[in-house]
């Protein structure tokens, strides 16, 4: 019995160690973004918001921040719409070439972002669509659709398949059944998909680096600084990036966990 307990403690400690390994760099970056010193030392030399003031007064950072926000919102809206449409198509229809259709929908994240970025650069530059913010959006949508589609498809899988046909039998046409049954039921996952795809776009550096050219987003700024000397600017920019993308990912998860609310909406809408 006591050996069981020791093993239990050891296993749990291992899990906590793994979490420490995962979170320590994030915490360190956050802490040292407030350090007045150039090189990280312990104990901290004091508290300063100097690095944040510095990056906010360097033109590239606020501009990159604006670009990231704009691109993130566009990517979220487009990829969530396409992801929803594809998830619904997969849920409702059987058709010739469906496996190919699903492969197109789900494969992009299995291709390394470096290659995806390079491919996009080569292709988009042939059709003169490279180097602008919309180039980043085009490419990010390809990468983000699978996440949106997966979230919404999982939600549709939880739906009673008779609900939609019940609406048809009660005289609703396809569009009305979509509006009054499918949409309310999938709403939490749609919002979760919006948040998650925006987070993925906001955090993605490689595709954005290749397709954006001089139009930098915030993570591309980090990438540029990473290749230079040690600079605590990265800590400051990084802390901004991960505060935003983490908030979005957390929001997505909270939306998915509160799934009961969606069911109540359908029940109310169905009356």
């Amino acid at each position: 019995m006591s050996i069981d307990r020791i093993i239990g403690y050891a296993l749990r400690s291992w899990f906590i160690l793994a979490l420490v390994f995962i979170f320590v760099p994030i915490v360190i970056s956050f802490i040292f973004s407030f350090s007045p010193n150039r090189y990280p030392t312990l104990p901290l030399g004091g508290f300063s918001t100097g690095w944040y003031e510095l990056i906010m007064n360097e033109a590239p950072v606020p501009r990159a921040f604006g670009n990231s926000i704009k691109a993130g919102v566009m990517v979220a809206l487009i990829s969530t719409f396409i992801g929803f449409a594809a998830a619904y198509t997969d849920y409702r229809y059987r058709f010739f070439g469906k496996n190919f259709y699903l492969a197109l929908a789900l494969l992009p994240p299995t291709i390394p972002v470096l290659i995806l970025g390079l491919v996009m650069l080569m292709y988009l530059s042939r059709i003169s669509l490279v180097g602008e913010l919309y180039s980043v959006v085009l490419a990010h949508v390809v990468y983000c659709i699978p996440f949106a589609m997966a979230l919404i498809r999982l939600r549709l899988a939880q739906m009673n398949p008779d609900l939609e046909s019940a609406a048809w039998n009660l005289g609703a046409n396809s569009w009305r059944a979509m509006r009054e049954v499918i949409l309310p039921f999938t709403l939490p996952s749609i919002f979760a998909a919006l948040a998650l795809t925006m987070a993925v776009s906001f955090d993605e550096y490689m595709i954005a680096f290749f397709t954006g050219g001089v139009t930098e987003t915030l993570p591309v700024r980090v990438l540029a600084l990473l290749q230079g000397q040690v600079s605590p600017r990265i800590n400051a920019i990084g802390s901004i990036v991960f505060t935003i993308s983490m908030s979005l990912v957390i929001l997505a998860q909270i939306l998915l966990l509160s799934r009961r609310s969606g069911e109540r909406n359908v029940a109310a809408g169905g009356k």
Partner: protein
Amino acid sequence: MRKVDGYALFWGAPLALWQLLFFLAPLVFLVVITFWTVKNFRLEADFDTINWVKMFSKSYVIDIYFRTLYYGAIAAIICSILSFPAAYALAFKASPSIQRIGIFMLITPFFTSYLVRVYSWQTVISDNGLLNGVFGFFSFGPIDMLNTMFGTMIGYMTLTLPLVILLQFFSLSNVDKNLIQAAHNLGCGRLRTVFLVIIPSAKTGIIIACTFAFILCFGDLVSPTSLGGSNPPTLSILIVDTVKQGNNWPRAAVVAVVMVLTLIAVAFTALYFAYSLKKSKA
């Protein structure tokens, strides 16, 4: 099955259009461009196998290819081994509410700030970094960690650990608890139960997790450059160097095509083993 109507087209077409135009077409173009040539720094449409011949005749390219395979495989195996006790603890030694928190703590970092975490590791493991500062306090070191294979591996683990623990956890929590109980009742020891009952039942998920780790590490650029010091190079570093030097897109495309084909081959082999082994057990 009804005829395809406007409603079906409205929902079905956007994905097909977007991914054909901006995913499949670029990939096809990637293959096409490997046969083009560069003359006076200008790309010309052509049908020449020179890029393939040149890239495959260089022994250092072959070396880099096998090194990258090796790095990816080592990282995937280390990550699977390190993850297993953690996934096991979460699946069998945690209450449902702790499990929810654990999943939450793993999903969040997987989607965020890989780049920043790699930078942060730089400051932790560099020669005058935090870790060597601690070592110095106990008057040993400094130990070279940055710009070594150890550094690269730290980066790879940062990239893969959350995902692999999660995937292993999901497959472990699907293991039939009665099976484990039965093994205990029949006098099967703890370790033997893990290796003879639990791991075989969760094999599919464990292999898939390991494959994902390989895919992520095989194509990663950030860890081998920023933590491994770009030396020795991996295929991703080779791609970037080829693009930078003389803008030789066709040869970079050759490397990219080879990488994608390798990933497809690895993924299919892994899926074959993941599912066939499961069937033979059942």
